[in-house]
């Protein structure tokens, strides 16, 4: 036969032989877990679904990449004005929430002391029966309460109608959002009569001032805000950021100026700033008419401890000149009258500077289902303690796990005869429930929500439910039907939601007449109308009491809570968020308590000592960590730390004692460059200093030929916020295993991409800066790792990639030793993906085995995908079409990827930028990655 050579023949023979010989150990599994696969589901071809991220209140639109019926990656929805294609670390980790091994896999009902599995029908029948018995003559249940997280959409509507139909009390439904910016809401209510959160357009602000608001980590809408702030960075006249807080957090690390206040002194600083702005002496231009009134309402000045009046004046002058600006605050941890006062002062500054309607927009925040004021929640708990609550429905609300111990939640819950928990996992509250009816994960359910006015985000399942779960809203509808509740006609939540969002979409001017049009909107994932921000009218009455002040806190240690972009301290967080080290401290897998160097010396504490913290609320044990950028009076604890619940709300005085024990903190990386100038900073307007004495690119032999492409990256250090969304994206895209605390301690994290930190100590604490450096394989032209490999496991591809062939690798680790960037990662053990986390694995990337070297591939699978599509469409690859996972997800758009051979490509232009430099130029490895030096503020 022509065409069949010996080799081929032998291959065929052996293949058939093997196939015939080995019988599979278990029944062959279908690649596609569907009975009759839809025609658009082609094995090997990814499908993209648009939906909404429910990780936090921001409501970013996401694109879910699905392969063979399993969603493998979450990315931002480019059509969504909030995420604009980017997604934060927490958002991407929602995927691990979906595949979390500890998710509930079916309904449970209490039998005696323990929860036993029960079929849905039985569970609902029992529950219906119980509710029926409890109904009074009017068909209502006096003691019924529904505690839910914020649901600005159909789900909320269903809950409200259910609660009002079955419950008697007027606030039968309480919305519980432990991370809600309640103070800001309250202040806006008092000042402008609008209980809403602002929408920020930081891209318009020339100066940003944050009073401890972690607006790049979790505060309000971090992805959008990072994009906004960094849109103004990189250029010589860049957006300036002033950070006012006892602790230099990640957001603060991006600041040009840090005013290190004493703990709890932010309020005074804000008031002094407001006072300075309003003081006629300073002749601030374009003051609003209310200026005088506000000035009159200001409390008498008080001496500042942490911050000098000059600093305040300096800031005031800057703000009066650089307009519009944006003042942000307070953080979620600020609470009570003081928090409200701070929020009010901040908003008044914004008003005085005329930021409203420009960078600070009111009237856009969704008013649907706003979280209830704290009072309602505590009232509910009090009623429960009095035994007046007979039925408590909990929807994704875990008061026991989230509220401080002082709230005495457990005592309250134990008094409730019937608790029904509608959630995803068995959290602290659900453990006390009588019925646990598991909800779908957000990625498994239909829905719609209004993240902000004039916007409608559509939620749709991206894969068939993994377990025997049911949408909570559906459960409520079923119960309503069983109990024949008046006024609830709908039977099917999906239909209800569809009708609702279609009405909403029409209101926003979307065309939905044809089914195709409806599908298009669903495929779009978001409907955007146009709503004008309004100029808020200040209500002068009650201004003075609002702006109350108390003397600066006395000397002595105070508790400070700070937010982190990841959730290393949260034991319930998914592996990615726990393992990827906190960008400023390098801690993973545990919570910690930060002390300033001076304080640590005074108390004789070393990093890793186990400290006993005690407040008037309670005590907790935390590992000490000496922070280079913290006020001496502050003891800072991550706000995710469960220990914080025992210690009570931040701001209170705290006592420290050494327990004599130590805690094995998992710490990664040293926060110093040893003056090697890897992450470079240049003075404003200045050019980066070049290394002397070596000619870049001079080599003995002719440089590489790159016939077609030369893939390259550029990283703008002026834009990188350090949020580590890129790192988590890399974990998700490239099947990086989560190795756990022990391996983390041993320095065996598998990250291909790390954000390296280094603290440059200044003359004063406030002058110290944190330099961040995203570090990954530099894909050098003259890669030192390549020639030392005896078996060609790593080599240089014609497209300029430094390729690693896992199957060839025998594990000499010579390449890793010889890599000047320490970019290579060795598999010290076989990776473990606990069921069902392995479902998240990206089929385009092989899972590496023990003894093999691996490293960043510039997401070669995505390059090939783009090249393939281009070939199919018979066109060259477009610039920006190829994006590695890290580049794709960067909220600040600090990373640019493309073909350096094309002189017009964005990456080529970026690399030609005057701030550009390569890492370790002295070793002349000719990296494919160019960094742009960070522009140093005037400090």
């Amino acid at each position, binding site marked *: 036969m022509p065409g069949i050579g010996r080799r081929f023949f032998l291959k065929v023979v052996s293949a058939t032989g093997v196939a015939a010989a080995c019988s599979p150990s278990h029944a062959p599994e279908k690649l596609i877990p569907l009975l009759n696969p839809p025609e658009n589901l082609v094995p090997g071809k990814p499908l993209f679904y648009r939906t909404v991220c429910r990780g936090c209140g921001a409501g970013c639109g996401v694109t879910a990449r699905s392969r063979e019926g399993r969603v493998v990656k979450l990315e931002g929805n480019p059509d969504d004005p909030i995420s604009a294609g980017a997604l934060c670390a927490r958002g991407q980790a929602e995927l691990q929430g979906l595949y979390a091994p500890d998710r509930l896999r079916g309904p449970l009902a209490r039998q005696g002391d323990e929860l036993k599995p029960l079929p849905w029908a039985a569970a609902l029948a029992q529950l219906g029966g119980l509710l029926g018995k409890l109904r009074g003559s009017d068909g209502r249940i006096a003691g019924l309460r529904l505690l839910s997280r914020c649901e600005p959409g159909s789900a909320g509507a269903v809950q409200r109608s259910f609660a009002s139909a079955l419950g008697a009390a007027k606030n039968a439904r309480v919305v519980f959002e432990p991370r809600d910016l309640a103070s800001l809401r309250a202040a806006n209510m008092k000042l402008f009569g609008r209980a809403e959160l602002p929408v920020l357009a930081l891209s318009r602000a020339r100066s940003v001032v944050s009073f401890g608001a972690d607006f790049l980590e979790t505060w309000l809408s971090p992805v959008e805000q990072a994009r906004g702030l960094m849109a103004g960075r990189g250029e010589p006249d860049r957006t300036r950021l002033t950070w006012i807080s006892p602790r230099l957090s990640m957001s603060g690390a991006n600041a040009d100026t840090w005013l290190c206040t004493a703990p709890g002194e932010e309020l005074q600083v804000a008031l002094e700033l407001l006072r300075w702005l309003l003081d006629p002496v300073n002749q601030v231009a374009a003051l609003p008419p209310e200026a005088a009134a506000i000035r009159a309402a200001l409390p008498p000045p008080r001496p500042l401890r942490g911050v000098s009046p000059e600093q305040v004046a300096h800031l005031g002058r800057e703000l009066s000149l650089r307009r519009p600006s944006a003042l942000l605050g307070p953080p979620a941890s600020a609470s009570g009258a003081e928090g409200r006062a701070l929020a009010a002062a901040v908003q008044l500054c914004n008003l005085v500077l005329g930021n409203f309607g420009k960078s600070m927009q009111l009237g856009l925040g969704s008013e649907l289902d706003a979280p209830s004021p704290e009072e309602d929640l505590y009232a509910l708990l009090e009623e429960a303690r009095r035994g007046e609550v007979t039925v408590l429905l909990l929807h994704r609300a875990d008061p026991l796990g989230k509220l401080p111990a002082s709230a005495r939640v457990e005592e309250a819950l134990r008094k409730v005869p019937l608790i029904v928990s509608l959630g995803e996992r068995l959290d602290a509250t659900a453990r006390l429930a009588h019925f646990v009816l598991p909800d779908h994960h957000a990625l498994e359910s239909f829905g719609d929500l209004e993240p902000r006015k004039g916007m409608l985000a559509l939620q749709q399942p991206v894969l068939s439910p993994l377990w025997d779960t049911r949408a909570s809203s559906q459960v409520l509808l079923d119960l309503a039907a069983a109990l024949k509740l008046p006024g609830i006609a709908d039977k099917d939540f999906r239909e209800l939601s569809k009708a609702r969002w279609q009405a909403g979409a029409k209101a926003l001017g979307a065309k939905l007449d044809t089914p195709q049009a409806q599908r298009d909107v669903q495929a779009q994932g978001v409907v955007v109308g146009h709503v004008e921000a309004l100029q808020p009218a200040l209500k002068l009455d009650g201004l003075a009491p609002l702006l109350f002040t108390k003397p600066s806190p006395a000397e002595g240690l105070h508790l400070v809570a700070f937010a982190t972009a990841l959730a290393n301290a949260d034991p319930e967080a998914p592996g990615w968020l726990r393992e990827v080290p906190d960008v400023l401290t390098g801690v993973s897998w545990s919570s910690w308590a930060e002390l300033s160097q001076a304080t640590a010396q005074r108390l004789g504490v070393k990093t890793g000592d186990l400290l006993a913290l005690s407040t008037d609320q309670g005590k907790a044990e935390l590992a000490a960590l000496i922070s280079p950028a913290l006020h001496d009076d502050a003891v800072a604890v991550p706000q995710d730390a469960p220990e914080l619940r025992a210690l009570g709300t931040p701001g209170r005085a705290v006592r420290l004692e050494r327990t004599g024990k130590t805690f094995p903190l998992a710490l990664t990386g040293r926060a110093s460059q040893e003056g090697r100038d890897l992450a470079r900073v240049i003075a404003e307007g200045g050019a980066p200093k070049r290394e002397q004495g070596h000619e870049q690119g001079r*080599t003995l*032999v002719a*440089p*590489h030929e790159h016939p077609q492409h030369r893939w390259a990256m550029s990283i703008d250090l002026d834009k990188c916020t350090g949020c580590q969304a890129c790192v988590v994206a890399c974990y998700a895209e490239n099947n990086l295993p989560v190795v756990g605390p022990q391996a983390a301690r041993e320095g065996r994290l598998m990250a291909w991409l790390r954000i390296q930190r280094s603290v440059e100590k200044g003359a004063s604490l406030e002058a110290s800066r944190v330099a961040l450096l995203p570090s990954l394989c530099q894909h*050098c*032209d*003259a*890669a*030192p*790792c*390549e*020639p030392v*490999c005896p078996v*060609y496991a*790593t*080599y*240089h591809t014609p497209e300029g990639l430094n390729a690693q062939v896992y199957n060839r690798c025998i594990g000499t680790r010579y390449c890793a030793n010889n890599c000047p960037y320490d970019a290579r990662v060795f598999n010290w053990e076989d990776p473990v993906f606990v069921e069902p986390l392995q479902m998240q694995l990206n089929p385009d990337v092989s899972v590496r085995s023990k003894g093999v070297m691996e490293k960043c591939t510039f997401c070669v699978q995505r390059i090939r995908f783009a090249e393939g599509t281009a070939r199919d469409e018979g066109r060259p690859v477009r610039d920006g079409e190829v994006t590695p996972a890290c580049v794709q997800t960067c909220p600040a758009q600090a990373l640019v990827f493309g073909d350096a051979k094309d002189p017009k490509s964005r990456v080529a232009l970026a690399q030609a930028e005057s701030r550009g430099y390569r890492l370790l130029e002295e070793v002349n490895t*000719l990296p494919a990655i160019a960094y742009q030096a960070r522009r140093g503020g005037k400090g």
Partner: protein
Amino acid sequence: MLHEPGVLAVFADPLQAARAVRAAHEAGHADVRAAMPAPFPEVMEAMAQKKSIIGAVTLGGASVGICLGLWLTIGTSLALPISVGGKPVVALPAFLVIIFEVTVLIGGLSNFLGMLIGAFAARRKSFMPHDPRFLRDRIGVFLPGAGESARVLLRAAGAEEVRDVA
């Protein structure tokens, strides 16, 4: 095993053995054979052997090694031109190490085999009566096909014992 008649003398002193060998040569015995526990220079001189050809063999082996090394390094690199670290595909400075090692290896092997074959051939072509003492403390001198005159000559040289090998 080939066998030849002749006269075998046993010496205790290498000098005497050497004297005997020389005398035998003078007496016209072209083919004098000896065995000894160590290569005593006097005796070896007296034997006046021609140089061993092992040198040539080894040289041949070494040059084969060089060629093999060149072929292995350059050949395989050209057959599979993989670009690593911006280095040329044929990187001679690096290859020199390999070439040297292969040369020494093949050279050494041929040297050893040459010696074994040489010794083996010698044992095959010229018969020398074996006596364990020749590996310990005595020196044997053997005159193939010699007669009475030789016996006298050997005794005169100071042989401890002289016997005919039939």
